[in-house]
């Protein structure tokens, strides 16, 4: 069965220069293992490849049932010089939640 991350998790975007952070937090503790298996750094890079020019690193936070994605060169040269309407990339948390996984 295919499911959107939006059904399984909530997310928060953050910014540091040209680096975007995306926290993906399971609503239910039981879904953390599934997220950990399916939402790999490579999968996120594929899903956001048209925005994220650099690498995606993933950190696992079992204590929070959360995954943290750190995306390099993702904010069109950086918050202060970006041409984007949303230069911080704050709306991008919901781009991650558009991702569909096999569940």
């Amino acid at each position: 069965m295919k499911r959107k991350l939006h059904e399984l998790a909530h997310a928060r975007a953050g910014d540091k220069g040209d680096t975007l952070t995306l926290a993906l937090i399971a609503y239910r503790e039981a879904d953390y293992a599934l997220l950990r298996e399916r939402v790999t750094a490579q999968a996120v890079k594929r899903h956001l490849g048209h925005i994220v020019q650099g690498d995606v690193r993933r950190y696992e936070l079992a204590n929070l049932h959360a995954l943290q994605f750190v995306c390099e060169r993702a904010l069109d040269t950086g918050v202060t010089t970006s041409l984007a309407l949303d230069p911080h990339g704050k709306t991008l948390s919901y781009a991650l939640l558009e991702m569909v996984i096999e569940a």
Partner: protein
Amino acid sequence: MILASQGELDYLVLECLAERTIALAQLRKLADPAAGYDPLLETRLRALLPLAVRHGFRIVTNMGAAHPLAAGRKVMSLAQELGLHFKIAVLSGDDVLSLLEPDMCTIEARGAPLSEYGTLVSANAYFGAEEMLPALASGAQVVITGRVADPSLFVAPMAHAFQWRVDDWPRLGRGTAIGHLLECAGQVTGGYFAEPGLKDIPNLAQLGFPWCDVDAQGNGVLGKVPGTGGAITLRTVKEQLLYEVTDPGGYITPDVVADFTTITLRESASDRVAIGGAGGRPRTPTYKVSVGYRAGFVGEGEISYAGATAVARARLAGEIVRERLRDDVPDMRTEVIGVDSAHRTDYGHAEPYEARLRVAARTATRELAERVGAEVEALWINGPAGGGGVRRYAQERIGVVSLLLDRSRVRPRVTVLEEDRETQAA
């Protein structure tokens, strides 16, 4: 104000500096030597000073921005005007613009030297809790700083109150986690969290701001004043804990390298979350320095289309503007608000009823930036059918890059203001 009067606080911290704020404040200071601190300082402190006296809390703020000493003097004159006796301590010395060399390398992705960036306008080192301790030890009821790492504004009162050593890494790590949770105020009490039907938050309009009751070990309980809006739950705290963190196992501040991967969270009561367990390792030998530079100009224009084929007409309009400015303004992007401006794709969602073209471009001069909006405005006459609601903008951009500077090269200074006297505390 509710938090200040009903929170039973020992310390009230106002964190008011975003990444670029100091650079903009520095430009104001260049235009007016008495300016350069946060423009809201007077309004906020006028309201808070009497409450600080009545309820016995101390105020800690980075509203000094590019000119902390001028901010301190302003607050002193405010206190005198209100007939209140205040001791004020000011931390300065974070302005390190004079120490920069063109060949210094930035820590941004490519590590390019400063000489590759435009004219520098500001450079501020992020101070930590240690630099603030003499200010707190002076007994001042108001502590004003320039650039200080956001969590450190909160760690300093903890370290002062509990007499933590500046190399007590575990306690500094735990205090840093709490400071990080508090630094965006309402973002941990349910602000920036709500999604109707899925993540509902009660009474957001009257959002309560957070307090944290911290113990001598650096563990704490987050809460808010009863009756205020918002919510403190595991979910709101988790989102805030990871916000802007690029390495959860090694969160670098001037005080410590904190580890958030061992944190434990527990809902101890309604709107109460207990936090503990963060780790800490020795701090780095350098200060991070945020450098502001002139980054050229940006011109923007927007125009709306609605009804059948709205998106197709918006796209055609974008192509026309791009073609007309191709030679003079090559660094341009066009997008349709309502379709792909935020995520550069619509991920297959259905087409909207209305669409708004947005054109934005980086330019070397203000004149070229103005032309971007002018071309969008010309779509009223020379573009596709039915466009309206043009808005245009052109402004100078101040960019920010970072570098690392050895601690020994920077001299923090604390000035204590009392009535008409100014003395150096450190």
